């Protein structure tokens, strides 16, 4: 799933309200993940790096709710500790994409003509590449660490935000109240902050919620491919990748980190959609 795909909805698709149970469930999932991010030491039953060779590859149960890995480390504890890296990288990447994308979109929308044309052709070029490919390219240039991972994923999603914000700016610019403000001599900065931004913030923010899920998925994919944090620290993508070697004997190693990514992304997407329905201009 790319952010673009998340954004696009078939125009003829019936708009159905998200059932409340879905929203509550999604909220609970995200709260749990948030709790893991904030206080992993309190929630994790074991230290994440403590090896116990005699307890290697224990299946779920046996005092280890989600089983253990090849070195006897408790998988649940590693997932809980890994949440911090996964979520923070996703959040940082989204923030970067949101801020940079909004800036580009604002500039392109406000200064039409050459500036707009040049910026938007850049955006078109970026959109022509799959976001994951762009992020891979960025990682190849930057090298891998959690910060660089966040930058790579963030950069790869700038274009989507820029495109959305520019469209909204163009729409808002021609509204009577903006024209009135322009006529009455409000300076460009004031116009931007007081009249344009508040009216385009909703769609951008709801896209950011969706974007967070996508960014997490992307950063997990990159970690899965080996661009993640340094061991022994591991985010969910790395945990899933590490389990591949023994998938036949130890299904839980890759499954549970994968499930963690999946339900977090799904919950974010559900909330993002709901927010989009509320905030987006029809």
């Amino acid at each position, binding site marked *: 799933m790319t952010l673009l795909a998340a954004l696009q909805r078939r125009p003829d698709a019936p708009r159905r309200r998200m059932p409340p149970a879905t929203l509550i469930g999604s909220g609970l999932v995200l709260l749990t993940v948030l709790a893991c991010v904030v206080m992993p030491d309190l929630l994790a039953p074991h230290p994440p790096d403590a090896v116990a060779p005699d307890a290697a590859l224990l299946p779920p149960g046996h005092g280890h709710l989600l089983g253990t890995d090849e070195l006897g480390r408790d998988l649940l504890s590693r997932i809980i500790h890994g949440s911090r890296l996964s979520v923070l990288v996703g959040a940082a990447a989204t923030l970067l994409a949101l801020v940079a994308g909004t800036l580009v979109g604002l500039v392109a929308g406000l200064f039409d003509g050459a500036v707009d044309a040049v910026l938007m052709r850049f955006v078109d070029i970026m959109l022509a590449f799959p976001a994951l490919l762009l992020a891979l390219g960025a990682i190849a240039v930057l090298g891998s660490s959690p910060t660089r991972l966040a930058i790579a994923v963030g950069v790869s999603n700038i274009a989507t935000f820029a495109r959305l914000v520019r469209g909204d700016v163009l729409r808002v610019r021609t509204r009577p109240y903006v024209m009135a403000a322009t006529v009455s001599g409000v300076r460009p900065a004031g116009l931007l902050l007081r009249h344009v931004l508040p009216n385009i913030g909703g769609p951008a923010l709801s896209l950011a919620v969706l974007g967070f899920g996508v960014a997490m998925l992307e950063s997990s994919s990159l970690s899965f491919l080996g661009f993640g944090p340094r061991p022994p620290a591991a985010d969910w993508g790395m945990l899933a990748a590490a389990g591949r070697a023994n998938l*036949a*004997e130890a299904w839980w190693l890759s499954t549970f980190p994968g499930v963690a990514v999946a339900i977090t992304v799904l919950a974010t997407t559900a909330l993002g959609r709901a927010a989009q329905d509320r905030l987006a201009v029809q």
Partner: protein
Amino acid sequence: MRLGIRRPVRALAIPAVAALILAGCSAPSEPSGGSATPRPGGTLTLATDSDPGCLDPHQSPAAAALLTGRGVVDSLVAQDPGNGALVPWLAESWTVDPRATAYTFTLRTGVTFSDGSPVAPAAVKANFDRIADPATKSLLAAGMLAGYTGTTVSGDRTVVVRFSRPNAGFLQAASTAFLGLQAPASFAAGPQATCRTIVGSGPFTVAEYVPQQRIALARRAGYRWAPRFAAHQGDAFLEKVVVTIASDNGVRSGSLRSGQIDAAGAVAPRDAVALEREGFPVHRREQAGIAYSLFVNSVKEPWDDVALRRAVSRAIDTAQIVKTLYQDRYTRAGSVLTPTTPGYLATSTQPTATEAARMLDAAGWPVGADGIRSRAGKRLSLRWSYVSPAREQRDLLAQLVQQQLRAVGVEVLLDPAPVGDVIASQSRGDWEMSDISFLRADADVLRTVLQSSAGGRPPIIPDGTLADALAAGAATTEPAVREDSYHRAQQRIAEQALAIPVYNPTYLLAVNKAVRGIAFDAQGLPQFYDTWVDR
């Protein structure tokens, strides 16, 4: 005839006929337990973990190139996998001058390459000249010919290979497929051509090579010059050997279970345990050369203090490593060389964390608040850049070592990196901890790998006493002197804790029950000349 592995009718007909002929002249085979007499014919399909990239052992340093290359090219001498002795092969006899700079080989007669040309002195010269030629871009073989000045043809059976400086490792090197003899006519098309197919005098010929998929070898008729330790003489039993490439461990063991392949090479220890349980025979052979070892840079502060290095080597619990990661299918290393390497001397001591902690205390590195030792504000840490993705679970091994050292207050900073980055930092001397294993059945490997950059990945050990011992070993072909030199070298490495041997890399080959006569060469790679399929 095209080699059609998808034509079972033809493939089955030949062994059936062969079996009938054989049945007429040998004892009747046992009905249920299978025949003890090798039956010629049939195809062996083996899955291996990696593609050599280039089939030519003159160019490629990959073990994968040896696996197929050994069946196709023969060498001047052969190394008996049983005792490491060098015995005649394409050379009937040889003499070495006292300085180990001139090797005179007398060639066996009547030997031909599979293109029909004779294995003559001129061919030997053409091969060595080619390997030493920089245009060949040899990554390993050229290093084995270090100091090569040329080959002289004298008479119709004799060649003299000369070196500008002593090269006692040459004789063993000449027994490997890296210095194997290929048909000179095949060199004409340039190095790229021999990457795709090689022509040798071996019991098999290359029938097909599809990169990243498979290498098919076909039996050569009229092979009469197997080394004397082989289980039989004459043509190979197998009509065809198909080596397929499946990098995923699970795919290889799964294909064996499902009967798609007859043999799974480079089986992961955990898979080997499961396959054994299911009744698949698993052949194992400890590979010769440098054991998988860790190195602590002895010229970097504070690791120039031998007490610290010794403490680290005592703190690493190798028994726990082989048990946890390798299910004891690999053994603990006893020395920087593996036990199957001639000249091996057991030097390892029992690991003990309490002793290691005491040594670190005595060296003046007290434990800090976070459990890591420090002195004058400097933390006792080791930066370890290792190749990732890693084989043999070495990435997990690094994390286990990290925890073992943490328990005694030494911090290990893990930095998994692509192989190019690791080599670059090692070449600059900018490393604190490093790891390596190296395949070669001669103790001279210590010199070629750890003392020069010829090995490609050089965690070079700067130690004068060690260098002297290794140079002494390389300067003579006298077995007793060589053995003594290499014993001294291993003692020096252990005493100075220059290397921390961890485990002996071991080739695990799982086969189905019909596969017989599996043999390993002196390096520890499986060979298929004596192999046959009982069905």
